[in-house]
Structure formats: C-alpha cells, structure tokens
C-alpha cells in the first residue's frame, strides 16, 4: 500500500471510529435519545428532509449569502491588498490593525448592523464579509511581497503600466498566496453568515437550527447540523485539493 493510501486510510479510520463509538453509545443508551439521536438516524433524517424539499429555500438563501460575502471579500480583499502594497505608509499604519483584527469579536457588531440595516440579508452578509476580508488582504500582501524584483523590473522594461503589471505579472505570480486567502475567505464566510443567522435572523440554515433547537426538535436539528458539517468540510477539502494542485504545478512556489 502506498504512503498516500495509508494516510487516507488512517484519516478514514480517525473519522469512522468515533462515529461508530457514538452510534454504539446511543444504541446502548449511554447517550439518551433526547440528547443525541444515533448518527445513522441523522443521515436518514437528512435524506428525508432534503427529499421533502421543505428547507430548500433556507439552504439556497444561506448559500447565496455565503457566496455574496465570499465574492465581495475576495474581490475587495485582493484589490485593497494590491493598493495597500503600493502605498507603503498606509500599509505600515494599518498593519497593527490587521494583526489584532481576528482578536476582535466581530459578532459583537452584529446587533449594531441589525439596528442600522434592519433584519434582512445585509447584516449577515456584512458579518461574513468582515470576517473574510482581512484574511484576503493579508494573504494578498504576503503574496505580493514574495514577487521577485526581477519580474517587476522586466515588467517595467516592457513598459507595462501599473494595472498591466498587477494583472499580468505580480498577481499571477502571487496566485498560490492569494488562493490561501480565498480558502480562508470561504471558511470565514460560512462561519460568519451561519453564526449571524443563528444569533438572530428570519430565515436560513442557522435560523432553522435555532428554531429546531428552541422547539427541542432533535429530528430536524441534528440532520441540519450534519448538513452544515458536510457542506463546510466538503468545500474546505475541495479548495484544499485545488490549492495543492496549484502549488504542485508551480513546483511548490512559496
């Protein structure tokens, strides 16, 4: 068995064994059904809920909000990162803000956003956007820092203007770093939007979980939690896979 296969096997075991133990603990009554139903019944419940289609609207709404936060943060983050990289004094000024940014409990601003924007989609998207933005900016700056001077000089010799240099030379070179930022942005958008929905909202997956929880409806709550876990882990693994492929093609450019 190859090394990669063996590691994949260990990973499968590391996930499967705890799930199996949980299944057994639930079946022998170590964990009461009121606390947690068996993992197998969560899967059955999820399939039923998805087939019935009654939460499709909530899923679509959450995914749309996550996508909006993700796209906005990625585009704005790369653009702001590229601009800041050219404006060294502003960058030096903002650097301490970036390094402590993730210490700030962004959710604490959510009540404020509700008061300002109302209880629509905007506050949720804004929370996801704010969580994701700085990760993209910082990755973009790191990426642009890694561009060798010779490439920038070559661009100057070729008489490229600032926009051409950015879009044709420096940003493509920094792509692996940018992708790290994009990967984080995806995770943060999910965390931000679903968290905001859970705290206070009128629809979406986070809201549905909160609603089921408040009504002690484990038959709905656990399948939905499973759905969120599956979706966020799948997105993470897919992006990770692309990331590895991208780096491998570059000969592990770092």
């Amino acid at each position, binding site marked *: 068995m190859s090394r990669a296969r063996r590691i994949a096997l260990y990973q499968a075991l*590391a996930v499967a064994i705890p799930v199996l133990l949980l299944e057994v603990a639930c079946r022998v009554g170590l964990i009461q059904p009121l606390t947690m139903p068996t993992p197998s019944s969560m899967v059955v419940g999820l399939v039923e809920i998805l087939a019935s289609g009654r939460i499709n609207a909530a899923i679509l709404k959450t995914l749309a909000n996550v996508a909006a936060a993700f796209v906005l943060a990625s585009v704005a983050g790369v653009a702001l990162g590229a601009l800041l990289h050219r404006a060294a004094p502003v960058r030096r000024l903002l*650097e301490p803000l970036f390094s402590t940014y993730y*210490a700030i*409990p*962004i959710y604490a601003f959510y009540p404020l956003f509700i008061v300002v924007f109302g209880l629509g989609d905007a506050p949720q998207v804004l929370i996801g956007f704010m969580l994701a933005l700085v990760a993209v900016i910082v990755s973009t700056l790191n990426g642009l820092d890694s561009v060798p001077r010779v490439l920038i000089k070559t661009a100057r010799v070729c008489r490229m203007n600032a926009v051409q240099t950015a879009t044709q030379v420096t940003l493509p070179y920094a792509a692996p770093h940018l992708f790290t930022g994009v990967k984080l942005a995806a995770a943060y958008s999910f965390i931000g939007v679903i968290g905001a929905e859970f705290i206070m909202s009128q629809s979406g997956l986070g809201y549905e*979980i909160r609603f089921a929880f408040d009504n002690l409806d484990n038959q709905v709550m656990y399948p939905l939690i499973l759905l*969120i876990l599956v979706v966020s882990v799948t997105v993470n693994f897919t992006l990770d896979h692309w990331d590895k492929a991208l780096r491998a093609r570059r000969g592990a450019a770092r």
Partner: protein
Amino acid sequence: MKAPLALIVLLLLLLWQGVHMLAGPDALAPPLQTIAYLGAQLPTPEFQAHILATGSAFALAVAIAIAGGLAIGLATGLSQTATEVVEPLLLAGNSIPKIALYPIVLLLFGIGMPAKVAFGAIHGVIPVAIFTMSACRNIAPVLLKSAAVMRLSRLDRIGSILLPAALPEIVTGLRMGFSLTLIGTVLGEMFGAQSGLGYLLMTAIGLQNTQVIMAVTLLLVVFAAGVSTALLAYERRLRSRT
C-alpha cells in the same frame, strides 16, 4: 510603532463618530458618550458580576484550550505520519461554523457554566493544535539530531529542545486560540445564560439599547486587542532572539 497605533485608534474613533452622525443616535451611541457610560458602569456591582461570570468561564476555557491544543499538537507534531493524518482533519475542523455545534453542547452540558466553558474551549483548541503541530514540524532537524546524540530522554527533549525552539510559533497559536476562545465564550453566553457579557449583549439587542451594546462591544474589543497586542509584542521578541 507607538505613533501609528495612536493614529489608528484616533481614526477608528473618528470613523465611529462619522457612522453615528450618518446613521443617527438610535442606531449607534457616539464614542464619548459610550466611554462615559462604560466608565460609570464599570464600578457597579451588577456590571462587575457580569464581567466576573464571563471572565471566570473564559479563564477556564482558555486553560482547557491551551492544554488540549498543546497536547494534540505535541503528540502529533513529532511524527511525520501523524501530522499528515491529523493536519487536514484539524484544518477541516477549523472551517466548520462552530455555532452549529452549540445546541449539542447545550444538550450535553445543560445551561450554565460548563456549556459556556466547553463552547469557548472548542473554538480555541484547534488553532493552538494547528500552530503547535506546524511549529514542531518546522524545527531544524539538526536540533533533533543533537538531542539524539546527547541521548536526551523524551521529556528532556521536549522540555529543553522542542518547546524553546517551537515557542515563537506556538505563541502565534496561543494568540489565535486566546481570541477565538473569547469569541466562543461570549457567543456561548448569548444563548441560554443568566449572566455574563454575552447575556448582557443579547438582552440589550432585545431592548434595542444601543448604549449597552456599544459599551459591552467596546469593552470586549479593548480587552481582546490589548491582550493580542501584548502577545504579538512577546512573539516578535521571541522571534528576534533567534
């Protein structure tokens, strides 16, 4: 370093005042009024009880997150295979919206202190583990070889070689873990708690009391940013040492 920091604080306060003027006093209490309100609230016993509730839950959660994260990170970081197996799982765990797990935590631990602590610790443990693991992997092989040549015991190797060499990166992990645990603890208090700053925030949302919202937010931000800045300075000193 000092001047830009003061400038940033000033800019943020101006931004705050600007948003206040744009959005109106109903949406957002102005900075000076909030600071004055916070100053008046801080000495009152009710407010201190909330701070104490959050503070003690947070202290316990941070201790658990750091101990757990260091244990996972050190146990797996020393083996190449274990790192390759566990790291993708931890990274995937990090991308999960933890709030989706909150109902489970509440059902397992019941409403109260243990649920808050558990929820805070869940947030912090993974980043500490990830950074500790990567710190172990990035240790210069020559150090480990020297340890082997000197026939150091496993404990000695961890105590006198691994930890000092990996410390700067571990501190990065602690910084991340610290802030995420704080966020987790406060989030945990927002639902099904009877006291604490998160509970205060949630009741203030219900009453649309922007003054309380702003004061609690300000307190959390100042505390989080203050500790994070101090840890960052410590980290820079450690890095410049080598």
